[in-house]
């Protein structure tokens, strides 16, 4: 069986001049990178890691923005036999102290021996280091060994076995950084083989992506799959996409892109925020699949996207879905690309009360569900009830999975690992049902909010709110509210304070919004500060999120009357 290094050596030998990646940066010309250049850049990093005495199997954390350094440092770690792990870069709105605290936590759990970053960011990184921690070296991008063709025979990465760990992915979420998923070469290749087959990936394909590489969808579908399969990749960044979504369409048109992945909100975002003048001459007919993944999938979002772009050659059957997670490397299911995803109209009441997906009746309220497809060839799915017993077809339960690419455990987290498994089956924490072999995902077991493809635990936002003067512990509640227009959830936070004075409440609301945003990088849509006894508690004193959400919605409705 093969390894990343051997696969890269083979591509480098067979097609050195073929373009592996076209890097896009707003305001700059596109940078095409051949396999030869890719390996030259990676080998400069491999030799730098070797100079710094980074041993095979040791973790290297990469704190870099979209660009050549991120790609080379990642692949260079692989060539050195070390284990790369990408940490999101500090964003404008996140408070530096919070970022340092998160980095310190990441270091204490994953125990990296080196961190790679820019000279300008060195002091931030050093600020997170502690006496006696695992980090021996902070490697700066301006102090690298020079680029040269790799000497494969001398690279430690060539001696790694396919069972060795090749990379660490972090499962997303504000507290997710503490849960790393360690993946072996074999696990990644097993995923790529099964997932590529589901896509019928072939040498006519070109992948266009703006997804971040610290997230599984970006790292696997939008980076490793194309590079290791010899499929060209056009890569831009989330930072640029969110400011100019039309560039995705222009890139697909210019490079004849065939495959892209987007979170559900991305379909809405693109259909609402692109002007005709940015689409002049754009031809989207090469797109054979735009895959909706990492948020609950909505038919309305596909319809809006198709409505907006079909006159530019977009095909309806190009809009597809997948259910994926870092814990299975990436894909769990994929819809059949030869036809549109299956859509079911089900009876809303039966779904809510009996937790079953029964065909809709014309005289009753209807729910529209869109399939995420069938499990890919190497992955099996079960739907379990509260007792861990299998439920019948069309009954809703927790989705569990088993595959030859699933995680063996969370990295250095035996406690989290134990909770995540039931007899060797990984418990996803997602609810869903199976109908005619297709998986329909219907919700989350935990009160997780998914906003713009990012998982947010309400507990984390509530804890942050208690740090605001005037808000006491246990006196706030956070939840998600689905926004049809945006195609994703809005975040609501309600805090109870002693003061009944509107001006004082307004002041606290402002402080709350600012503090939570700067410490979570999550924008709050509604911040409501209320007087005593507003928040509903359960009999055991816990905050009942769904009850408070209903109360909030009722008040919102009255206010708008």
């Amino acid at each position: 069986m093969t390894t990343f290094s051997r696969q890269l050596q083979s591509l480098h030998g067979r097609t050195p001049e073929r373009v592996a990646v076209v890097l896009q940066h707003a305001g700059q010309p596109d940078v095409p990178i051949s396999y030869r250049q890719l390996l030259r850049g990676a080998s400069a990093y491999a030799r730098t890691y070797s100079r710094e005495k980074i041993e095979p199997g040791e973790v290297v954390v990469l704190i870099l923005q979209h660009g050549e350094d991120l790609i080379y440092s990642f692949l260079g770690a692989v060539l050195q036999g070390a284990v790369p792990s990408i940490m999101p870069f500090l964003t404008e709105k996140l408070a530096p102290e919070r970022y340092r605290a998160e980095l310190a936590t990441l270091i204490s759990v994953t125990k990296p021996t080196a961190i790679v970053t820019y000279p300008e960011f060195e002091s931030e990184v050093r600020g997170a280091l502690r006496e006696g921690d695992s980090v021996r070296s902070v490697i700066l991008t301006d102090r690298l060994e020079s680029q040269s063709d790799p000497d494969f025979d001398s690279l430690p990465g060539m001696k790694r076995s396919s069972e060795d760990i090749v990379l660490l992915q972090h499962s997303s979420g504000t507290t997710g950084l503490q849960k790393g998923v360690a993946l072996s070469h074999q696990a990644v290749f097993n995923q790529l083989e099964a997932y590529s087959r589901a896509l019928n990936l072939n040498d006519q394909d070109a992948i266009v992506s703006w997804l971040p590489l610290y997230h599984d969808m970006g790292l696997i579908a939008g980076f490793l799959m194309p590079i290791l399969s010899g499929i060209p990749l056009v890569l831009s960044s989330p930072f640029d996409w969110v400011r100019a979504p039309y560039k995705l369409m222009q890139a697909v048109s210019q490079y004849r892109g065939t495959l892209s992945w987007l979170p559900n909100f991305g379909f809405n975002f693109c259909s609402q925020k692109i002007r005709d003048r940015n689409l002049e001459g754009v031809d989207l007919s090469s797109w054979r699949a735009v895959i909706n993944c990492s948020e609950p999938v909505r038919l309305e979002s596909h319809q809006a996207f198709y409505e907006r772009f079909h006159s530019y050659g977009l095909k309806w059957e190009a809009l597809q879905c997948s259910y994926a997670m870092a814990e299975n490397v990436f894909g769990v299911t994929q819809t059949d690309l030869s036809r549109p995803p299956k859509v079911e109209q089900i009876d809303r009441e039966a779904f809510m009360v009996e937790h079953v997906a029964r065909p809709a009746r014309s005289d009753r309220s209807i729910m529209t569900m869109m399939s995420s497809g069938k499990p890919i060839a190497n992955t099996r799915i079960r739907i379990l009830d509260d007792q861990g017993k299998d439920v019948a077809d069309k009954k809703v339960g927790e989705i569990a999975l088993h595959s030859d690419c699933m995680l063996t455990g969370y990295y250095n987290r035996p406690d989290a690992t134990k909770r995540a498994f039931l007899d060797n089956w990984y418990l996803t924490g997602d609810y869903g049902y199976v109908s005619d072999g297709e998986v329909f995902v219907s919700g989350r077991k935990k009160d997780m909010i998914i906003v713009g493809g990012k998982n947010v635990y309400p507990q984390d936002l509530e804890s942050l709110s208690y740090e605001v003067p005037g808000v006491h512990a246990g006196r706030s509640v956070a939840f998600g509210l689905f926004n049809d227009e945006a195609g994703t959830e809005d975040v609501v936070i309600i805090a109870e304070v002693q003061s009944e004075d509107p001006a004082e409440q307004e002041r606290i609301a402002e402080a709350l919004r600012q503090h939570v945003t700067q410490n979570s990088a999550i924008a709050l849509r509604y911040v409501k500060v209320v007087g005593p006894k507003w928040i509903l508690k359960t009999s055991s004193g816990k905050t009942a999120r769904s009850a408070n959400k209903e109360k909030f919605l009722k008040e919102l409705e009255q206010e708008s009357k």
Partner: protein
Amino acid sequence: MSDIQTTIGDYVSVSILKQPKRKTRTDEPLISSGLIDSFSLVDLALFVEDTFGVHIDDTELNAQTFDTLDQLANLIRSRQPK
């Protein structure tokens, strides 16, 4: 406060923050503070273009180019035909 600041300030309160009663100070940081989420930056640029006929490039949608209503108003004025 000039008309430009008021017009954009109202748009930010009503359409972006969904707090119609909120008054944004003209020297208050909007982007670096996270008050305006990155998902809303395109909306702001489109609103400025439709309302004032001034184009703001996507590479300019950051706190270095403008962060407050005053700075944004200056940018708009500098680009309006004299």
